[in-house]
Each structure stands twice: as structure tokens, then as C-alpha cells.
């Protein structure tokens, strides 16, 4: 109860506070402090769930179950580390005159607002509120993408806005249809959109309606997940926004959108009693993997590169959830976790690298390891982790997904194999060229804030070697629920 | 019993070592006759050896220990080979030490040491010789192995003594595969022993020589050992041919009286083969080094054909 309020309230207050005074010299610290307190609240919430089990509070408005509890913690955690990272990063940007105090204020305010929307989307029990929060997340980030006001950034932000707006509108239609179906079972009024109730009666929901509803929901939230061919906003937004935003977009937004899709898939599967939804998701997943892998091989911009890698990994996770089954869903959840940690860590390193070399063009970044071993190794290890090389967590999930696929859907494995191999070749060749070799860059006045990078990578490493039992239990329960 | 074995073993080895130069002399004589030159005496090779052994050795400044060691190794391995091949008797204590494959390996040891020693001084001819020698060997060795495999398959064994006993002491039986093998064997023999048409033993014509280029830097006792080993090698090959393709007359295990008979038989066979070799050399001309691969390729082919024929008609 109180924890939930804290988790949601702190970032909201922080948003108001920083929107008012985000241009003060202490704003960055304040931002970090708020994020930290949010994290602590989330940890408290987690601890409570560990001890007391899932809970539903405030007139069933919010609920915490095995599926969203770890996502809440993850979100708060990545939010905090990103804040730590952006403290240094944004200072450098400011010193380089890329940001006016006004925009810094906007940045800090919107950052906290974004955190709020993410947490709201995760915690709410109401599918409608979930939609509202997702839309609000778009609104909160769109101005951050265009923070630099460069033509490119404005264009990127516009595309992000229009495409996600349209997509989310489809999701709304899907939600309405869901409500229509639920209403006939649960009666009209608020309870018909409460997920806990929907989950109880999912078997009785009207299949035809839910089938169509799922199409709209999948297209809608799938746009935010970045599934091919709805992905086109993603690389632009990642490449042109400030790096901390790229980090949270890849690390959090995509996760939450996928979370929304999966929540709805649970209902649809039960209602339809067929594997139609799963098949759709598998198709989208494979398409995303292969197309993203092909795109990877033609990237010149480092942030675009990793944006496409995000598409690829979201594709893998979607494929896993599409396959369904205890192991595959387990792997999908693990993959979400590992990917968001790794990818945000990579973006931190990329941010420093881009600042040191003053460019995002891959061919101009060389020999980072000589300029700053920490940045170089951070990028290298992060890249290795994201490429699914053990003993990192990403490998653990890919191991389970691939072996499952090999047995259940052998026809899919060649595509996955091709996708992974291509992605490896494309990313690693560039990574190696950037990290190793003779260097081009000069040192920066500010020491890089690399503690986040290595903390993330450490956790990912841990996930590959040893998963905490309660986390594993959550994964199992959630997987059982997802089916 | 074991004493008898040891005796026959020593007898055979000594016989081979001592008679090898004589065989060389005999072949040279035949050749001289065929080219109607006046032949050198049969004992000429012995005189050569003695002369060389008495001379002071002359060694290049930069010759390493490998260079000086090689003649002894080569000589020793040839002696070993000679004491493995059943020439007069089949129950030799040493023969279990090596079957045909090991025998081929033994030849390879000698060859490799020679090739290395030839490169040691760093003369143009040395490396040229070793390259050509290794090339010829690389192509001859497989052929030789396959040649050996045909009788090995017939006898279901690669142990020489077993093969010989199988072939010699069972009732006469014609093996077409052996005919192929025999032809291939002769070709390999010519190549391995630096005879015409592959190499010319009696030339120092720099651009065509192979074997002579290898031992170019040797003198005195080292050269003597090399030549002796070379003669011994020819001897071993001929006796191998005898053992595999016309083994009749070899002494049965434990037959004292058969021994002298066997010795006589071997003498006759060697004399005939030597003469035949001389004829062969007289009628053929030396070929270009890059014709040699074709030559040995044919040998290889014949050997493989022999093996396949064995499977087709005999197995």
C-alpha cells in the first residue's frame, strides 16, 4: 500500500519539483536522489512481496504479482543508474553548449515523469489506465527526443510521436473491444477493465471479439515494442535523442510495452483456446530478428546500431512468449531482464565514447581502449554480453529459447541461427574496430561515470551463473500464468 | 633354439652388409657389358670404400653436429632394415620389431636425415637435392605402402615373416594382384634407389642429380658410410622384392640344413635381379624431374589397382 504509493508518488513529486527548478546546479543531484529514493521504495515493495506474496491495493486500482514485481524493481533500478550516468553526461553536454538551462529543466522534469508513467503502467490493475500510462510515456519522452532541437532530432521526435500515437490509438480500440467482451461477463463499470477480474473470467470472454481486439492491441503496443514492420520510429528516436533517453527507451519502454502485449495475450489465449495469438507473436518475433539483423549490417551510426540490436532482442523475447510453455516464457522473462540491463549499460558506454570522440559515426571512433580503458572494456564486455556469449544472462535465455525452438519449432531455428550469426558478425566487427586498434579521441575533463555500466554487467553476469531463488520463483509463476 | 635364431639373424645381417657392395659391383659390371665398356672389377666398390675410409675427412666450416651424425644414423637404419627382411630365414628375432609399415618408416628416417644433412651446409645443390629427394620420396612412399598392402591383405598380416611364410610355404597360387604390385614395386625401387630413369647414380651433372646432390659435401669416412648405406638399401629392396614376389627357397623355421640351400637361392636370385636391373637401366633414359611425379603416379595407380583387384577376384 504505502510502498506502492511511494513508488508512484516519489517520481511524480520529483517531476513537479524538477519541472519547477530543474535548471539549478543541484538539479542533477536531486534527480539522482529522487531516482534513488524511488529505487529504495521499489526495493521495499519487492521485499514486502517476497515476504507476503502478491498484493492488490487501493480498491483494486493497483496490484503486484510475480509478473510485474521484478519489472518494477528493474525499472526503478535502471532509472536510478541512468540518472547517475546522466548526471555526468548532461553536464558535459551543457559545458559543450548543447543545452540551455531551460531545456535541462525540461529534461529533468520529463525524466521523472517518464519514470512515473512506466511505473504506473506496470503497477496499475486497470487495462485502461495501462493504456493511458503508455500514451503518457510517449508524451513524456517525445520532447526529450527532440531535446537538442537539431533538425534531425525534431524529425525523429515527430516520427516517434506520430507513429506511436497512431499505434497507441489502435491499442485503445483493442482495449475498447476487450472492455466490450468483458462487460458481458463482468457487467459494466470499472471492474470490467481490472486485470485481476479479467484474469479470473478469461475463459468465458467472447473469442471473436478478443481475436480482433488482440490484433489491435498487438499492432498498437507492438509499435512501441518495435516489432518489424512497425519499428521505424525506434532507430531514429534512439539515435537522435540524448543518450540517457536512448538507454531508458531501450531498457524500459520496450519492456513495458512487451509487458502490455503479454498481459493481453494471456486473456486472448484463454479466450480463444487456440495458439493463434502465440503464432502471431512468433511470426512478428522471427521477422523482427531477421530484418533487424540485416539492418545491423548496414549501420554507420553507433546508436542506430544498438537500436536495431534492441529490435532484434525484442523480437527474440516476443518469439519466446509466442512459443509459450513454461521454459520458453521463463526464458522470455529472463531475456527481458538481461536485455534491458545490458542494453542500458551499452548505451552508457556508448554515450561516453561518443562524447570522447565527439561523433556517433562508427568509422570515426577508434581505439577507445587507449583513450579510456574503462569505457573501452565497458563497451566490449557489454557488446559481448548482448551478443549472447556466455556466461552472461542473455546467453542463458537464448540457450533456453534456442533449444526449445529446436525441439518444438525446428523450422524456425534456421532463421534464428541466421539472424544471430548476422547480428554477431555485424555488431562485433564494428565493436572490435571501435574498441581496439589505434585511437583517435582525446581525453575529457570529466571522468566518465562508469559505475552504472559495470554494476549492470555484473548483474547480467550473475544472471548467467546464478539466478536468485525468489527471482526464479517469480519467473516460474509468471511463466505459468503466461502459459 | 634361440641361439639358432640369433645365429641366423647375425649371419643374415652380416651377409647383407658385406655383400651389398658386391651387388653394386655386379650391377655396374653388367651395365658396362651392356654398354660394351670394359667393366671395372667386381671388387671395385670395396676398394672405393677402403680408400675413402683411409682419407682425412674434410668438413665445411659451418657443418653442425647433425651433419656429422647423419652418416651413422643412415648406415645404422639400413643395417636394421637388412636384418628385418627375411632373406634366408623367416624366424628372425628382430623381425617382430618391425612390420612392413615400420620398414617404410625406417627408410623414411634415413631419408629425412639425409635431406636435413644436405641442407645443413647451405649450398644451392644441397637444398636442391633434398627438395627433389623429398618430393620423389613423398610420391614413392605411398606407392610402396600400397604395394606392401596387397600381400599384407593376402596374408592378413603386415608382418614380413608371416607374409613370406604364407606366400612361400603354401601351395603355389597365382595372384594377379601381385603382378600389378610387382611392377609398381620395381618402379618404386628405381625411384628410391636413385637409378635411371629417375636419377643417374653415376653422374655429377649438377642440374639433374638428386642423390649425388645430397651427399655432395660428404667426404672420406662419412661418404664411405653413405655409399655403403646406399648399396645396402639397394640390397634390401632387392631382397624385399624376392621375399614378397619370389620367396621360394627361404628356410623354414628351425631347418638347419635348409639354410645353405636358402643362401644359394638368394645368391642366384640377387644375381638375376641385378642383371635385370642393369638391363632396365641400359634400355631406358633419364627423365626430367617433373616427369617423375607422373612416373610415380603410375606406380601408385598400379599398386592401388592391384589392391582393388585383390578385392575383386581374390577376396
Amino acid at each position, binding site marked *: 500500500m504505502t510502498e506502492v504509493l511511494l513508488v508512484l508518488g516519489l517520481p511524480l513529486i520529483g517531476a513537479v519539483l524538477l519541472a519547477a527548478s530543474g535548471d539549478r546546479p543541484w538539479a542533477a543531484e536531486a534527480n539522482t536522489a529522487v531516482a534513488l529514493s524511488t529505487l529504495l521504495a521499489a526495493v521495499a515493495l519487492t521485499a514486502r512481496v517476497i515476504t507476503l506474496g502478491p498484493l492488490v491495493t487501493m480498491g483494486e486500482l493497483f496490484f503486484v504479482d510475480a509478473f510485474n514485481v521484478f519489472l518494477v524493481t528493474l525499472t526503478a533500478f535502471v532509472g536510478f543508474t541512468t540518472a547517475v550516468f546522466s548526471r555526468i553526461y548532461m553536464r558535459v553536454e551543457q559545458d559543450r553548449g548543447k543545452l540551455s538551462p531551460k531545456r535541462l529543466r525540461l529534461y529533468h522534469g520529463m525524466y521523472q515523469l517518464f519514470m512515473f508513467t512506466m511505473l504506473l503502467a506496470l503497477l496499475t490493475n*486497470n487495462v*485502461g489506465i495501462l493504456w493511458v500510462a503508455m*500514451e*503518457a510515456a510517449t508524451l513524456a519522452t517525445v520532447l526529450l527526443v527532440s531535446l537538442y532541437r537539431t533538425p*534531425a532530432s525534431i524529425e525523429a521526435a*515527430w516520427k516517434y510521436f506520430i507513429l506511436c500515437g*497512431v499505434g497507441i490509438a489502435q491499442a485503445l480500440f483493442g482495449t475498447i473491444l476487450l472492455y466490450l467482451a468483458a462487460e458481458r461477463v463482468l457487467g459494466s463499470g470499472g471492474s*470490467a477493465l481490472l486485470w485481476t477480474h479479467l484474469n479470473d473470467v478469461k475463459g468465458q470472454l467472447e473469442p471473436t471479439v478478443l481475436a480482433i481486439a488482440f490484433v489491435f492491441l498487438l499492432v498498437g503496443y507492438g509499435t512501441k515494442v518495435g516489432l518489424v514492420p512497425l519499428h521505424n520510429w525506434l532507430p531514429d528516436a534512439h539515435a*537522435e535523442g540524448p543518450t540517457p533517453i536512448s538507454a531508458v527507451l531501450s531498457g524500459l519502454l520496450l519492456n513495458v510495452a512487451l509487458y502490455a502485449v503479454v498481459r493481453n495475450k494471456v486473456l486472448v489465449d484463454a479466450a480463444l483456446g487456440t495458439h493463434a495469438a502465440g503464432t502471431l507473436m512468433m511470426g512478428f518475433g522471427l521477422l523482427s530478428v531477421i530484418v533487424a539483423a540485416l539492418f545491423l549490417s548496414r549501420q*554507420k551510426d553507433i546508436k542506430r546500431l544498438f537500436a536495431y540490436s534492441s529490435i532484434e532482442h525484442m523480437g527474440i523475447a516476443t518469439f519466446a512468449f509466442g512459443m509459450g510453455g513454461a521454459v520458453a516464457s521463463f526464458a522470455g522473462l529472463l531475456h527481458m531482464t538481461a536485455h534491458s540491463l545490458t542494453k542500458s549499460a551499452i548505451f552508457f558506454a556508448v554515450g561516453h565514447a561518443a562524447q570522447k570522440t565527439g561523433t556517433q559515426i562508427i568509422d570515426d571512433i577508434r581505439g577507445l581502449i587507449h583513450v579510456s580503458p574503462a569505457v573501452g572494456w565497458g563497451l566490449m564486455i557489454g557488446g559481448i554480453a548482448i551478443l549472447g556469449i556466455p556466461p552472461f544472462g542473455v546467453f542463458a535465455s537464448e540457450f533456453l529459447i534456442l533449444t526449445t525452438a529446436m525441439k518444438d519449432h525446428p523450422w524456425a531455428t534456421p532463421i534464428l541461427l541466421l539472424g544471430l550469426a548476422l547480428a554477431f558478425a555485424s555488431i562485433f566487427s564494428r565493436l572490435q574496430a571501435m574498441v581496439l586498434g589505434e585511437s583517435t579521441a582525446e581525453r575529457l575533463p570529466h571522468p566518465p561515470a562508469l559505475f552504472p555500466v559495470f554494476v549492470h554487467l555484473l548483474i547480467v553476469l550473475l544472471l548467467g551463473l546464478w539466478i536468485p531463488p525468489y527471482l526464479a520463483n517469480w519467473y516460474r509463476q509468471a511463466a505459468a500464468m503466461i502459459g | 633354439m634361440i641361439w639358432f635364431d640369433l645365429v641366423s639373424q647375425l649371419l643374415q645381417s652380416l651377409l647383407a652388409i658385406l655383400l651389398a657392395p658386391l651387388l653394386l659391383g655386379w650391377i655396374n659390371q653388367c651395365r658396362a657389358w651392356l654398354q660394351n665398356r670394359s667393366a671395372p672389377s667386381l671388387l671395385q666398390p670395396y676398394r672405393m670404400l677402403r680408400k675413402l675410409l683411409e682419407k682425412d675427412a674434410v668438413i665445411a666450416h659451418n657443418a653442425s653436429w647433425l651433419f656429422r651424425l647423419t652418416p651413422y644414423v643412415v648406415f645404422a637404419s639400413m643395417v636394421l632394415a637388412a636384418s628385418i627382411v627375411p632373406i634366408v630365414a623367416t624366424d628372425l628375432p628382430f623381425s617382430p620389431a618391425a612390420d612392413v609399415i615400420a620398414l617404410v618408416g625406417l627408410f623414411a628416417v634415413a631419408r629425412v636425415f639425409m635431406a636435413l644433412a644436405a641442407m645443413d651446409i647451405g649450398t644451392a645443390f644441397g637444398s636442391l637435392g633434398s627438395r627433389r629427394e623429398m618430393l620423389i620420396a613423398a610420391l614413392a612412399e605411398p606407392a610402396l605402402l600400397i604395394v606392401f598392402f596387397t600381400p599384407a591383405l593376402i596374408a592378413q598380416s603386415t608382418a614380413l615373416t608371416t607374409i613370406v611364410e604364407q606366400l612361400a610355404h603354401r601351395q603355389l597360387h597365382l595372384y594377379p594382384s601381385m603382378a600389378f604390385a610387382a611392377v609398381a614395386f620395381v618402379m618404386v625401387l628405381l625411384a628410391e634407389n636413385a637409378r635411371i630413369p629417375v636419377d643417374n647414380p653415376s653422374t655429377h651433372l649438377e642440374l639433374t642429380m638428386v642423390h649425388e646432390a645430397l651427399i655432395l659435401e660428404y667426404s672420406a669416412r662419412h661418404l664411405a658410410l653413405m655409399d655403403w648405406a646406399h648399396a645396402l638399401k639397394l640390397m634390401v629392396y632387392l631382397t624385399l622384392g624376392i621375399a614378397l614376389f619370389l620367396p621360394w627357397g627361404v628356410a623354414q623355421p628351425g631347418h638347419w640344413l635348409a639354410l645353405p640351400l636358402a643362401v644359394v637361392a638368394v645368391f642366384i636370385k640377387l644375381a638375376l635381379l641385378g642383371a635385370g636391373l642393369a638391363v632396365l637401366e641400359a634400355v631406358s633414359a633419364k627423365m626430367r624431374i617433373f616427369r617423375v611425379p607422373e612416373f610415380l603416379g603410375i606406380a601408385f595407380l598400379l599398386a592401388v589397382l592391384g589392391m582393388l583387384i585383390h578385392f575383386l577376384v581374390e577376396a
Partner: protein
Amino acid sequence: MSAVTQVVNLLAAILLLIAFAMLAQRRLLRLIHLFALQGGVLSLNTFVVAAALSQPHLYFSAVLTFVLKVLVLPWILMRLIERLDLKRDVETLINIPTITLIGIVLVIVAFNLALPISQLAGTITRGTLGIAMASVLISFLMMITRRKAVAQVIGFLAMENGLFFAATSATYGMPMVVELGIALDVLVGTFIFGIFFFHIRETFDSLDIHHLEKLKDRQ
């Protein structure tokens, strides 16, 4: 068929008509007027349903719709195009007959899709679900065909209207809290769009979105 239903169906038909009109409308100013009109019809429709069924929260949402979609949003848009003096025409990418033809195809598709659903829906307004879906798709089409930022935004808002209409027709509207949230989002969204117009304007000194086609995969 009850009188209310007839009224509702009439209003729905008008909505569809307006949607087509917007699809075919070249002038930006008229577009805004049409948008306001659409909002008006929408709120009227909601009001009728509310009256017929005496659903209190529908009254509220009718008022909300009116305030938001007839007064506030059009007013904001007007202000914007005055400030950006965009009284000029908006030209479409491909010629209007084709577009309207595609629109008709969409209507057919939408009706067929909506048929099974509307049979399930227990509302007096269920017949209009197909129209709602159609107007959503048509607004989508409009967004695709327009090449001026403002027009695209209006298309976006029209789509929002269509959704709202769907909500009322299929389920007598969403729960209150959700409706409020949606309204808030739409409002904020429009503001942000407004901000964007100025950014785009000052960066490219035109609101033609073909300036916004630079970002692609350079090879």
C-alpha cells in the same frame, strides 16, 4: 427499431460523412471546422444515448467531449494556424477520387469486421460500431495521405474521435477514470503538437513534412 436508435444511426451516418469530407478537404481552416463539427456530433450522440438510458456518466462524458473537442481543441488549432498563418490550402499526395475510393473499400472492410462484434454488443447503438471502426480507418488513411503536419495532427485527433465514438456505441463509454485519462492525454498531446509546429517551423520554416524525410539508413 426505437427512435433513439434511429437518431443514433443518423448521427453515425453524419459522422461517417464528415469523416469522408475531412478525407477530401483541401483547406486547412475547413478541416478544423469539420473537426469541431465532428466533435459536436459526437457529444450530441453521447448526450442522446445518455438521455435515452439515463446514464449519468455518459452525460459527463458528453460534456467533456463538447468542451474538449468542440471548444478547446479547435480553439487551440485555430490559434496555431493563425500564429503560423497557415490559411493556405493543404494539398494531398494523390488525387482525391482515388483516396475516397480507398476510403469506401475501408468502410466495407470495417463493416464486415464489425458485424460479428456488433451482434454481440448488447447496446442500442451497436449498429454504429462498424461506422466507428470505419471512421477510425478513414482517419488513418487521412494521416497517410496528408503531407502537412497540422493536417496529420487533425487526422490523429479525428481518429481519437472515432475511437471515442466506438467506445460509446459499443459499450456506452469506458469507465470514468479511463475516459479522464484519455481526455488528458489528448489535451496534452495537442499542446505538444502545438509546440512541435513551432519547432518544425523555426527549423525548416515550413510545416511541410517532406522536410522530415532525411533520417534514413544511409548506405
